[in-house]
């Protein structure tokens, strides 16, 4: 079994373990509930545990030589780890920035940083597209979604400090 297949197999086992833990939690936390409220969770949690055990049994009993490789068309197999990490972390990083600094800062950061991290060479084009996109979205989103843009924890704190009367 080569390193790629081993890490793919470990991913699979981690996924099964996560599912098992979730279903075990469903069963355990259902036990103190009244009978009618716990019955269905016990059925579903029990079924989930059996299914994950069946998947685990298949994976663990499989001979090492038969461990499947990632799909041939899997783009993750052909790119380096910086691109892979960018792909995985762009959404959590944007979420964190949105929570802390609000829509405008998070959007600008995403529009400027993501193309650079993806090795897009035309910096001037990135800046122009980022500014135009953020301005358009800042104007359109509240109108289309009928919701005000989040200012973030830091933004709210700043507004409270600088404009206490608003």
């Amino acid at each position, binding site marked *: 079994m080569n390193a790629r297949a081993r890490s793919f197999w470990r991913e699979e086992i981690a996924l099964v373990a996560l599912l098992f833990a979730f279903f075990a939690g*469903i069963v355990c936390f259902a036990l103190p*509930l009244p009978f009618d409220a716990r019955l269905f969770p016990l059925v579903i949690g029990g079924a989930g545990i059996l299914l994950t055990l069946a998947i685990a049994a298949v994976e663990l009993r499989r001979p090492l030589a038969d461990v499947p490789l990632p799909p041939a068309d899997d783009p993750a197999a052909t790119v380096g780890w910086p691109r*892979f990490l960018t792909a995985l972390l762009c959404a959590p990083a944007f979420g964190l920035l*949105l929570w802390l600094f609000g829509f405008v800062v*998070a959007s600008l950061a995403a529009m400027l940083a*993501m193309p650079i991290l993806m090795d897009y060479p035309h910096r001037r084009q990135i800046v122009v597209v*980022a500014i135009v996109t953020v301005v358009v979205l800042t104007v359109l989103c509240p109108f289309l979604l009928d919701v005000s843009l989040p200012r973030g924890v830091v933004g709210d704190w700043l507004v409270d400090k600088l404009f206490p009367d608003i």
Partner: protein
Amino acid sequence: MLDNLLLGLAAALHLKQFFFMTLGTVIGLWVGVLPGLGAPVAMAILIPFTFSMDPLSALLMLASISVGGAFGGSVTSILLNIPGEASSAATSYDGYPMAQQGNAKVAMGLSAGASMVAGIIGVLILMFASAPVAKASLAFSPAEYFALAILGLTVVSVAALGSTVKGLAMGALGIAISLIGVDSILGTERYTFGSVYLLDGVSFVPVMVGLFAITELIDMVIAGGTIAKAGKLDGSLWKGFWGTFKYPFVLIQSTAVGAFLGMIPGIGATAANFLAYGIAMRSSKHPELFGKGAPEGVIAPEASNNSCIPTSLIPALTLGIPGGVTSAILLVAVTLQGLRPGPMLFTSNPELVWGFFMGLLIGAVMATLLYLVMIPWFALITVVRIELMAPMLLIITLFGAYANDRNMMDVFVAIFFGLFGYFARRHGYPLISLIIGLILGKLAEGSFAQALMISDHDYSVFFLRPLSAAIFALCLILVLWPGVKKRIGHGGAEAT
């Protein structure tokens, strides 16, 4: 019936509905052209935008995205041999050779003609079959509803690519997630751990945004680059469009295949696409021309996937059991608008239901016209750099998740499900099973509890009623059949 048709026509022929149908179709065509970014992704991203819309506009816009996506999916299949949507994969078998022969526009015209006819027939079947199915479902007891929910989940898990056990596990996960929040029977808090956010349960919108949009985005960021170097179109679009009608047998046969498969939960447009292609090839007088640019090879898959979309709404609207991704998203939109799918929807909201049906009918023609007029422009989308498009989609997607309830927690839930969905899909866990489990969870638990209450906690109620027993038997056959087939195959191989 005539009254309902007129009522629906009056509701659909409103300028506002036209606007949202056009918008939905254009978005659908756009995302359909882009491989990876299919109609379900666009529908999931745009669900939050529908909250402030009236129910008919919201449903018509989402359904139009689905129809537009099916139309647009054929473009890259024909031009680049890369299906824009999985449901257009078989179109590339003959569409791409036609493009190589300098007949790209003819192939697109054939695709448009077949899609329009099949779409119209599919909607007509939806119109005439929904009301009787809804009426018949009034006779169902909670035991049957529970059995149907399990059947829907089983069929989707079995039909999904990969392992059935993984599909069922994802279905169970979806149902388990639906248990979070206040229990609908007794009002007991479950799995909330004191969190106010979890009292209402996990919302559909962030889960769908995560599973469909974020997972695709991760793949897009990894892949990078552009889809094509240039969108080149040759031949005559209209020649192809009228050429469709030279093959009436293939057109009707493939439409029937797609319409039938659409009604069965879990089969979906992708399977219909391949099956119709295979049947058309076998029934052709010149099967040797298939794969070399045969017009029937474009008509068959396009007719089947477009007739499949409207008929997949029959179980969703009448029984509340979604047949596939797009009908699941539409079902979520129906629920978010405060409506309950099922027979009561037809009696309490006839204007909405029939307006929706008539809107779909008009939408099939509208999508064809927009496709024929705008497709040269949409082909240019394939040259847009993913590096610039991905961050825009990320912002719109996650802000949409936030706008759902103006709650940052929804953003984090979407991100969590996006990451989980990415790894789950990589390992062959079908995400559609999770969504369908989540949608069916409340129905399954409610009917399970009601059936037990009615029968005084006698569990045999699920197996003594003939219909529910038959449905459960069908579930068992579906789950066991692949294993039995494999064993028979092995036995046969050993014997020989």
